[in-house]
């Protein structure tokens, strides 16, 4: 095993990359090989940074799939749970990441493919119910537009967390951290047992997580129109 270029924590923290990497990790960013120098820095400094972050109530997790992230184990650092749209879109992206057809494009997909895949796995009705559940009577066109908007917002938020990279136009680059969405179905355990273990480690929570930015239909013009109709 090659030696680290850093002699101690002071050295690691004095490196010019540290401030940006630290801020990114604290904001939930997953860092993988595509981040180039950041990933190389973390590989080099992980032995010093792990105990450092533990003092803040967080674990610096390095996954064999090739990415790092910070997992809060207490309330000192600040944490959140992904919202329903983010979870649905994240799992869809993970499915596309596993799909061999994506290999042809080097791990790139389009937004339309994400939406199409999500709708084909969940079913359109179930998808609308999951992402646009507040109204009893649903105007189909309005509901579909709301679903598209929520998927779009979820993609944007997942990209800030390093799960996906938004390229020009409609293209998205899938990143290894998406395999986090498949952790509960990877091992030999049943999905329920695996999920329970993740919850015990603080990696996940049962339930719907946080409300997203656009979850409240009453705030949207479409929601207001729906209210007026009713």
């Amino acid at each position: 095993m090659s030696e680290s270029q850093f002699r101690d924590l002071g050295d690691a923290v004095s490196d010019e990359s540290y401030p940006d990497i630290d801020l990114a990790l604290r904001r939930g960013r997953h860092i993988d090989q595509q981040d180039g120098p950041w990933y190389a820095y973390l590989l080099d400094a992980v032995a010093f940074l792990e105990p450092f972050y533990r003092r803040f109530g967080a674990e610096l997790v390095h996954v064999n799939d090739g990415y790092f992230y910070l997992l809060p184990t207490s309330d000192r650092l600040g944490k959140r749970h992904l919202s329903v749209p983010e979870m649905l879109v994240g799992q869809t992206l993970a499915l596309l990441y596993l799909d061999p057809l994506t290999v042809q494009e080097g791990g790139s997909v389009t937004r339309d493919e994400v939406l199409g895949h999500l709708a084909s796995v969940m079913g359109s009705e179930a998808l609308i119910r999951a992402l646009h559940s507040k109204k009893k009577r649903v105007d189909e066109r309005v509901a579909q537009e709301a679903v598209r908007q929520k998927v779009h917002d979820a993609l944007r938020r997942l990209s800030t967390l390093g799960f996906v990279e938004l390229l020009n136009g409609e293209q998205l680059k899938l990143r290894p951290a998406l395999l986090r969405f498949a952790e509960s179905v990877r091992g030999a355990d049943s999905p329920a047992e695996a999920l329970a273990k993740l919850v015990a480690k603080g990696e996940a929570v049962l339930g719907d997580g946080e409300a997203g930015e656009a979850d409240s239909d009453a705030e949207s013009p479409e929601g207001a129109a729906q209210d007026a109709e009713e």
Partner: protein
Amino acid sequence: MSEKLTVGTADPARLLAELVERKVSLELSTLDLGFVALLAARALQAGLASFTEAQLTDAFELTCQTMDPSLDNLKLRATHAIRRLREQRMLVRVDGAGVVRAGEFALSRLASAIVEFFLEEEVLTRESLTLLTRSLLGSLSEILQAAEVADSDDSWRIGVTAPLRVTVNELISGIERRQRGLDVQQEEFQREMSKLLEVDWFNAIDRCQTLLDSTAKTLRELNEILLRDTHLLLSILADVSDVALQRSRPDVEAVTRRVMEQIDRIAAWGSARQRAWSEYYEYVHRYLRDIVRLDPSRALTQRLRSQLSEHAARPFALTVAAAPPLRLLRSVLPPEPPLPVRRPKREKEEEDDLPAEATKDPLGELEAQVTELLLQGVNDLAELTARVTADLPLSEQFLAAGRVAHFVARLARPPVNSRRPWVPVNSGLVIEEWRLKKANVGHE
């Protein structure tokens, strides 16, 4: 006749306008392409420079029998196909006999290029690249020697400019064509790799690895040759450009510069492909290692799909760090306080200069003037206003006119139903004219 446009130098808008004006279009069915390909193959094998109509019809019939045996009326179809190809400049008549006899036809440059693209895979290999770059080096060395001894317009044209434009251009086009062929081949590799994984999954690992390694090796070799040889080519071209500059030959400089740009593009292609393939190589390696090897039965995909479809019934959410952003206090200079709203003060008149009448009631005076004039029999508001405001400055006349109208309305009875034309009063003032019928001075 319009000037011939070249893609490299023409204004894009003009280029497009030219195409629209000429109504250029291309529409070829698979049968048409097959027909053209067969003609190209026969021309090559039999050494034919042109085809008679009978030979064209025969080739078309063979194409139909091979590609679509259900077709009938082949002779009529052949006539239509030949006409279509002529209209689209794929076939050109090469004899000058007109209606005297049946013509002879040859494939145009367009047809040859299309056949070449679809059928002849000119892929860039180590051998083809080395041959082309060595030929280029040889040609450029000769051009440099010619430039050094050229002493007339003709010698420059024949020894330098023409070879740069024609020979060198052809060699560079050859490299570019083969680069495009390699790009197409790489796309095929990627598609093949995806299909192998889709069909064989775990058993496709070795084959995918072999494909990756062979392409990476090819690209590495090509890039090495390109980097080495383009450096030499650019060096010779720089020498040619220097000689042209010393001999004041701007035309030669311009042609040399264009060739240097083409060679730069070729070198840039190599670096870009190397980079892109490295990323793809790394991605596929990671995919094979982290996904295919660890999940030989593809169970993970099925389980994840079930998890997603059942998410509403068994929801869960991943935890991520979300530290609030740090407050970074900036040193900000407070803005200047806004200037207070003020209006310019008029200069105060000296008390000694004020006339004695300034202390009297100006409204009362105005009313007295109006009353006086009404008693005198002035019954036009315009005349009344003109007399009262005659001595007033322009800035006060408008206000005074309003007051005069007010007093007149109180003291007299302006007619309601009659027309009230607008008439000028003094200079700069226009009022509605009232023709007063009866003055009722003193009564309101």
